[in-house]
Each structure stands twice: as C-alpha cells, then as structure tokens.
C-alpha cells in the first residue's frame, strides 16, 4: 500500500521543494540498487544506474500520472537504464524475457572435502551464474534482500504467480545434477 506521505512529498517536489525528494530517495534506494544489482551484476555499475534512475525520475516527475505508482514507475526507469548499461557492455538484452540464456553446465567445480556448507555454496554460486537470466534475476533479488514475491513482482513488473513458478523452477535448476554428483561421491 502506498503511503499518503509519499504522494505529499511528490506534490511538494513539484511545487519546487527539492529537499522533499530526499525521503523518497531514502525509501527506495535499497530496492533500486538491488534491482540494478540483480540485472547488471556489478555493484559499481548498479550504484551508477541507481543514482541515474533517481535523477531521471526527479527530472520527469511531472510526467507521472498516478502519484501512487511512484515505486513501480521508478523500477521501470531502473530496468530501462540497466538494459542500456548492459547494451553498452555489449550484452544485448531487450527485456528480462529475451535476456540471453546460457547453457547450464553439467561440469561442477569439484573441491576438496572441507566444510560442507561452504563448498556447496560456492558450487551453487557458480551454477547461479549459469542459469538463464529470467531465473537468475529473481533468485538474486530473493537472496540479496529476501524480498517477498509481491515485492519482486512489483520491481520486475511481473505477475506474482510467474515469480513464484520461476523461483521454484530456478531453484530446481540450481540443484539439478547436484544430488547425482553427491551420490557418486558417496560411492553409489
């Protein structure tokens, strides 16, 4: 639910009160940064994108028709800036749906036995990088800040059901083959 205070602040900014923009930035900076991180996968680039997203939103605030939709509108600006950044990095995306998928490698880095949890985590991290982007983006948002499905849906402009099914499918793909490898390790 959008807070009336947000709408008040937007009106104040449009009346020339620039300092009223700060609480809005403070409220959304974490989510915008993490959304950018999940898409561009580079913290420095994500910080630049986040800053630019807020500046663009400030300059174009008068075009926002429904002031209660500031958050989703801001996330849309952020996503577009991310795609522009990715194009400049020569990744060539057009949307989350058409981000290039990568083949899931069946080669899993084998490490010497150690603390099981950490070994597995490094393996899972490596596999996460290889997942198709449409799963990777959602999983990153979930792991980075444990956002709810509703919040992820809002940030990525996707239906909640799709978020739910993609997170489930992404996790299955993440662990696919792992059990088989472990059973081989255990001599089965």
């Amino acid at each position, binding site marked *: 639910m959008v807070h009336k205070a947000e709408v008040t602040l937007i009106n104040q900014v449009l009346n020339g009160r*620039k300092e009223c923009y700060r609480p809005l930035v403070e409220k959304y900076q974490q989510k915008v940064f993490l959304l950018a991180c999940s898409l561009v996968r580079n913290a420095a680039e994500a910080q630049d994108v986040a800053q630019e997203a807020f500046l663009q939103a400030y300059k174009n605030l008068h075009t926002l028709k429904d002031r209660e939709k500031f958050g989703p509108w801001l996330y849309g600006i952020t996503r577009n800036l991310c795609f522009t950044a990715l194009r400049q990095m020569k990744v060539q995306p057009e949307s989350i749906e058409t981000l290039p998928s990568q083949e899931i490698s069946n080669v899993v880095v084998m490490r010497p036995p150690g603390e099981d949890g950490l070994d597995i985590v490094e393996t899972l991290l490596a596999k996460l990088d290889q997942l198709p982007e449409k799963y990777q983006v959602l999983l990153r948002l979930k792991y980075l800040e444990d956002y709810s499905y509703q919040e992820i849906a809002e940030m990525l402009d996707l239906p909640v059901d799709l978020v739910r099914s993609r997170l489930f499918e992404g996790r299955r793909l993440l662990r696919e083959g*792992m059990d088989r490898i472990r059973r081989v390790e255990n001599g089965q």
Partner: protein
Amino acid sequence: MASERRYCYTGCCTEWEQEIHLYIDGELSPAGCERVRRHLAKCEDCACFYRVVEREEQLLSGRLRQKVAMSAVPSLIADQVMDVIPSLQPITWGQRITKPVWAAASYCLDQNRRHYALAASMLICVIGVLLTMRIGNVEEEHFVHIKRNGTLMRVTLFEPIYISRPEGEFIEFPDGSLAYATYDTWFSVNAYQDEGGTSNVGTDRRLSLKSGELYLDVRPAKEGFSVICPNSRTMVFGTQFYIRINSGPMKETTVVVRTGQVSVEKLGKDQMASTIVEKGYMTKVFSYNGTVRMRIPYKADPLLMKRLNLFNEAKEDRSAQRLVPLLDVISKNGVLSRSGSAPEPPILPDILPQQAGEVFE
C-alpha cells in the same frame, strides 16, 4: 544410510517440494505453515530436504550479499543524488503554464502579431508566477532543529520524515526528548519549542505517526507531548513509552508504558473516549465493525517491555546497533518484517471483545 539421506534434493515428496520452498520463503498462510510442519514431522525425506535447503539458502544469501558488499552502497545514493539535485530544475506548476505560453508567443511573434502575443504572454506569465508563489494563501513555514543519529538538521513542521536505515534512527528533539524510530517508519514533527528555529505552532510538543514504531523518552515539561496516529492521540508530560501504528488499511495503535503514565484518546466519528495507561501496562486502539475501539489497559506484553528496556539501555550512547536485535525479535515473532509485508499484530488471546468492560464503546 545416514550419508545417503544427507543430500536428498530429489528425495522429498514431489507434491511437497514447492510447499516447502514457499514455507522457507515465508509465503504461506498460518494454516499452510501448520500443514507443512505436520508433514515435516512425519516425513523424514522431506524434513531432510527442508533442513538442507534452508541452510543452503541462508549461506547462499550471505555469500551473495558479501560479494555485492551490501552494507555501504545504498545509503550513499541519497547523498549523491541530493548533491546533484540543486543543479537540476524539475518542472514546477508555474513552468507548466508558462512554457507552452512562450511557445505560443514565439509563434505569434513570428507572424508579426507582436502586440497581441506580448499582452497575452505577460498576462498568463503573471498568473503562472502567482500560482507558483501561492499568493493569497502563502504558508509561512515553520521549522524545528532535531538531531538524526547525532547530525543536526532543520526540518519543516508537518513534513514527512522517513526512516530508511535498516538499523533505525535516534531522533533528538530540542528539549532533549529522545525517540528511536525503526526502519520504514513515517512520522512528522507538527509542533515543538525550538529556540534556534524560526517559529513554532503553539507551545506544546506534537508528533504525527503515520506508520511504524517509535520508542520515546520524553523530558518532563509543563508542555504536553503528544503523538497523533490516524485513530488515536497519546499524550504525556514526561515518561518513557512505545507506540506503534501498522501500515495496513486497518489501523491499530499500540501503546506500552515503561515509566510514568500516558493518556490515550481514541479518535473517530463516534464518541470520544480516553484512558490512562500506567507503568508496565499497555492498550490498543483498533477498528472493529466500522467503529474505533480501545482496550482497557492491561499488563504489558513481556516482549514489548523487553524492547522498551533495551531502548532505555541504548539511549545513553544513542546506539542504534544495540537495538538491532529488537528487529530480529520483531521479525521472528511476525509482528513487523523488515521486508515491509507485515502481518497484522495479533490480538492478545486473553482479551476478548465480548468480555464485559473489556472494550470501550
């Protein structure tokens, strides 16, 4: 056999796999959680799956956050953005009127209709300037100086203040009264005596809490200190108390008193009522069947009292980090989650609306 079962991604019951993930993610209703818990108690394969996956998800999350170096970056963004903002010009109401007018005026000038263009443009631009200045209804702005986590700043009365730091913020008022506001809290200062400020509305001390939580340590003074929520007003002269208003559509105010006493008044279209809440007691103001109700004060929840005691210990050094465990306690008990998707606070089971005398009309 133990080593076979240790890693069992494909060992759990297929129909429960997604339910278990939803359970780990906190996306199930209380009934759904109970259903999963009962199954996990009966099915060793699924219980193994749950243990392994939950642990890995936590480790993966921690590792990913480490890689992104989460802690510092987001909070810098606001400073960076606000450094650039002064050099930018958002389009104001006045400009929205004058810009197209100038475009029309330029056309007229090109067409040698200079005198019409000039007269019309001047008239409309004056109107635009007047609208921007809001002459006839000029609001004289009032300020107060407060400290936010030790940094002195000037805030406009009635202007919303948002707490974006995950660890919350300590707010110090001009008279030395102190508040600790948790993450995602919205409030405003509506009135305060401030010798350094330009003016003040009235002589009392007033905050307006839109949503979130405030822990308050109010300095005794002859001026009352009140916190106004959508459905209640709480007033003290000098004491320590806690107040929370949820952000959902069904507003519920909770007031807990650590020392002294507070007066809580319910606000609504129906009959006004107020009560005094003493040290160690609490009350709630909530909506019930379309009216605003208030509970007779009852013994404070031990968890809430523990939070207030922690606030009292942390207030001397203004250490928001010492209060971070409060957030963990809050999250685990499902009262407020940090993601903001808050389940409503539970009504204490020993207080029932139908018991005689329990609820004010």
